[in-house]
């Protein structure tokens, strides 16, 4: 699946050659030598000179000794490729005639191929809708009677060149079904907003996932689409590349820290191998209002990862072009909301965010404000106790001096 060149799984450390080392020293001096704390990020829409425009977005994040390539495309269902190379000079090569052919294998390559340390892909295949009206169980699976799912391969997407925002390093794919007999998407769309980061930080909007230069954020938003029922719960099918015969592992990390996403104490991760490798990270929360306050937070439920042998998956051209036809896939279902509580019906709005990246997944640490308050809150009475003790000890001494006189 990964080809035969070199170890692609695992974002391992490797001894750089002398020339590479020199170039690192020269080029990285102002950026700091330790790891890839910052990257030079560029967004580029790769034009199709052979025919009608195709959405192929290439995000290149160049660090001192490595490059990350994120390739987003909507030829077929929306999909993302993540390729990490151990050189700052790797490039993406696209063979459009091959890519658009029925057998696109080899249509996309990252050169030089022996610099590839990690590669994987995500495909967003289907949008589910459930009627949760008669489901009182909050944790019911599925969350209600399913409607016919929307296949994202049969969506038409906007021209990504018009929706690039170089200032925020983001781009938005906006799509609606090609065949929409009920007119559900007449005023609505499904949007995939992709954003890359030159350095670590945290967005101002919930769920405020901590990102680093090694990650890229995806925000999926369903807005304005008319639901088919009063209490429609939506879901998303995400397909990823398996690891040999097995599926990648899923982790649910419990945390004590909900400062950045109030009342959410969990972080979900999908890991493509032993750390550090590639990962997908998300908080199990979605939002039903644009403000994304706590009152609009929906629980986001995750199914287990399962092989997708049972039904034919819509093929993403870019994934097929890069990984060939031998790759096996695993699917994951996300459902947003339950029959009770806030839901899509509030404002006909739903948004969910995730991070895609390589290396060690970012981990939240206690904020300086909390540490500061704790230090003062525990320090002040402690000091007072100490001072009081000393004061009393001295006072007692004076007393005892008086006693003999009495």
């Amino acid at each position, binding site marked *: 699946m990964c080809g035969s060149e070199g170890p692609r799984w695992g974002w391992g450390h490797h001894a750089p050659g002398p020339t590479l080392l020199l170039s690192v020293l020269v080029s990285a001096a102002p950026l700091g030598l330790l790891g890839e704390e910052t990257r030079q990020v560029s967004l580029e829409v790769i034009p199709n000179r052979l025919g009608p425009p195709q959405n192929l977005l290439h995000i290149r994040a160049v660090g001192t000794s490595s490059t990350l390539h994120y390739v987003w495309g909507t030829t077929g269902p929306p999909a993302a490729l993540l390729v990490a190379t151990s050189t700052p000079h790797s490039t993406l090569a696209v063979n459009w005639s091959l890519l658009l052919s029925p057998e696109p294998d080899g249509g996309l390559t990252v050169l030089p191929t022996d610099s590839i340390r990690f590669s994987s892909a995500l495909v967003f295949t289907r949008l589910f809708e459930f009627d949760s009206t008669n489901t*009182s169980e909050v944790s019911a699976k599925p969350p209600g009677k399913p409607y016919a799912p929307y296949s994202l391969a049969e969506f038409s997407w906007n021209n990504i060149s018009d929706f690039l925002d170089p200032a925020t390093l983001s781009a938005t794919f906006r799509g609606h079904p090609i065949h929409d007999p009920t007119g559900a998407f007449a005023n609505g769309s499904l949007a995939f907003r992709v954003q890359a980061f030159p350095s670590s930080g945290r967005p101002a909007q919930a769920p405020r996932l901590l990102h680093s230069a090694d990650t890229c954020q995806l925000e999926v938003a369903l807005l304005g689409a008319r639901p088919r029922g009063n209490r429609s719960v939506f879901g998303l099918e995400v397909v990823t590349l398996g690891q040999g015969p097995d599926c990648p592992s899923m982790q649910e990390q419990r945390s004590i*820290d909900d400062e950045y996403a*109030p*009342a959410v104490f969990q972080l979900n991760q999908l890991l493509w191998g032993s750390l550090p490798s590639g990962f997908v990270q998300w908080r199990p929360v979605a939002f039903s209002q644009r403000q994304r306050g*706590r009152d609009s937070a929906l629980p986001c439920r995750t199914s287990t990862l399962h092989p997708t042998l049972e039904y034919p998956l819509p093929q993403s051209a870019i994934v097929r072009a890069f990984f060939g036809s031998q790759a096996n896939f695993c699917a994951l279902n996300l459902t947003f909301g339950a029959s009770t509580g806030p839901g899509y019906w509030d404002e006909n709005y739903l948004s969910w965010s995730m991070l895609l990246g390589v290396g060690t997944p970012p981990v939240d640490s206690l904020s300086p404000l909390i540490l500061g*308050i*704790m230090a003062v*809150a525990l320090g002040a009475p402690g000091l007072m106790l100490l001072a009081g003790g000393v*004061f009393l000890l001295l*006072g007692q001494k004076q007393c005892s001096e008086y006693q003999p006189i009495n």
Partner: protein
Amino acid sequence: VSLALRDLPWRHVSESGHVTTFLIELGQCSFFSENIPASRSSTGPMEEDDEEARALLEGGPSEDGRGAPAVPAVPGALPALCDPSRLAHRLLVLLLMCFLGFGSYFCYDNPAALQTQVKRDMQVNTTKFMLLYAWYSWPNVVLCFFGGFLIDRVFGIRWGTIIFSCFVCIGQVIFALGGIFNAFWLMEFGRFVFGVGGESLAVAQNTYAVGWFKGKELNLVFGLQLSMARIGSTVNMNLMGWLYSKVEASLGSAGHTTLGITLMIGGITCILSLICALVLAYLDQRAERILHKAQGKTGEVIKLTDVKDFSLPLWLIFTICVCYYVAVFPFIGLGKVFFTEKFGFSSQEASAINSIVYVISAPMSPIFGLLVDKTGRNIIWVLCAVVTTLAAHIMLAFTLWNPWIAMCLLGLSYSLLACALWPMVAFVVPEHQLGTAYGFMQSIQNLGLAIVSIIAGMILDTRGYLFLEVFFIACVSLSLLAVVLLYVVNRARGGNLNYSARQREEIKLSHAE
């Protein structure tokens, strides 16, 4: 004048010579101030009245014939249950007294029990949700000073109780109507009206208790009333969610109507309490006719100008009180979602653990009361309680340990603090200022609760539970600071706050000599 033990709140020397303290400092607001003067006035000569009345009842058929023609004059013909001088009758009264407060305690924590439902059905955030608690506290910032006055001088105990019960009932009905009509402002108004009645009803309840049980059983009665209040809160926590789901099932859908109807059903407990108030008023009047018993009075004297004479230790005690309670009650109000989200508890489990503080304090209050009585050294006990609470909050905030540990610690320390802190006021305030001091303490406690409820809701909405817990830790640590300062000030001034029981006894004896 000796520093008599009976000056302490709800302190009573029982026949066996044991000194017991029952601390009634219930959830929303303690009703201490009423009790001090009450127990003060209740000791001594009044016990003889009882005997006298019994003698009258037994030996004076003419009395009965004139006063209560319905009651047979012959003592033997009066069943024990109907004879106000008999234990059986008083037990009946006790039952009524316990249920008198049940409604208000049951309904006080309705919002906490239905937190997710209220927020979802009324579409409010946590900040607005916590206003339901704040609106309960606001009227009591003022009413703490006047509850006793209203009962003694304006309404009398019987009418006072009935009026306050009506306020509670009407408040709960308005609260429920706010749900049915989907008007959150109406719910807030309902809580305000409920608050006007709730605290003062507690005052009335205690006045009745003193009026009927001055003498041997008073401590037991206070203890039972306290337990009943806790049971009310606990039943509420565990029942309302279930009730909501039943109403939801019968209506077919969740929504503000479901919420309103659930709250209306919860309001039945208030009607029950109102009926108790009416029956009590009748029985009290009847007993007055038969036994020539005076109408119970709180005996509370409030003089606001006394505030300027309050000493530094008293202000420190106020600080401890406010900073401590604001870290307990708002937390319980917001706790349910915390346990479901952070610890993955089911709704029922979360309700159970959220009510454990009340469950523990019901049996532990008398035990700790006895402990503090036997040992003295109140400041050390307060210090222990505050440190334990601090540890419990730190556990809840920074660990994923089973929260039962932390909540049980919180329940224990909360009960201990109540038993050690409230009596301290009596040590630092002259007797004639006690009413004012306790009224003031309750008033600023309510003020603190109202303000912190709002702040807590805001913090939770924007910063989450960890930050909220850190905020509570900061409050408790401020309280701890005040305890340490109190210890030092007391020590430096040679105050009597931290004497052991034996030292107190010695001082009392030396004064008596």
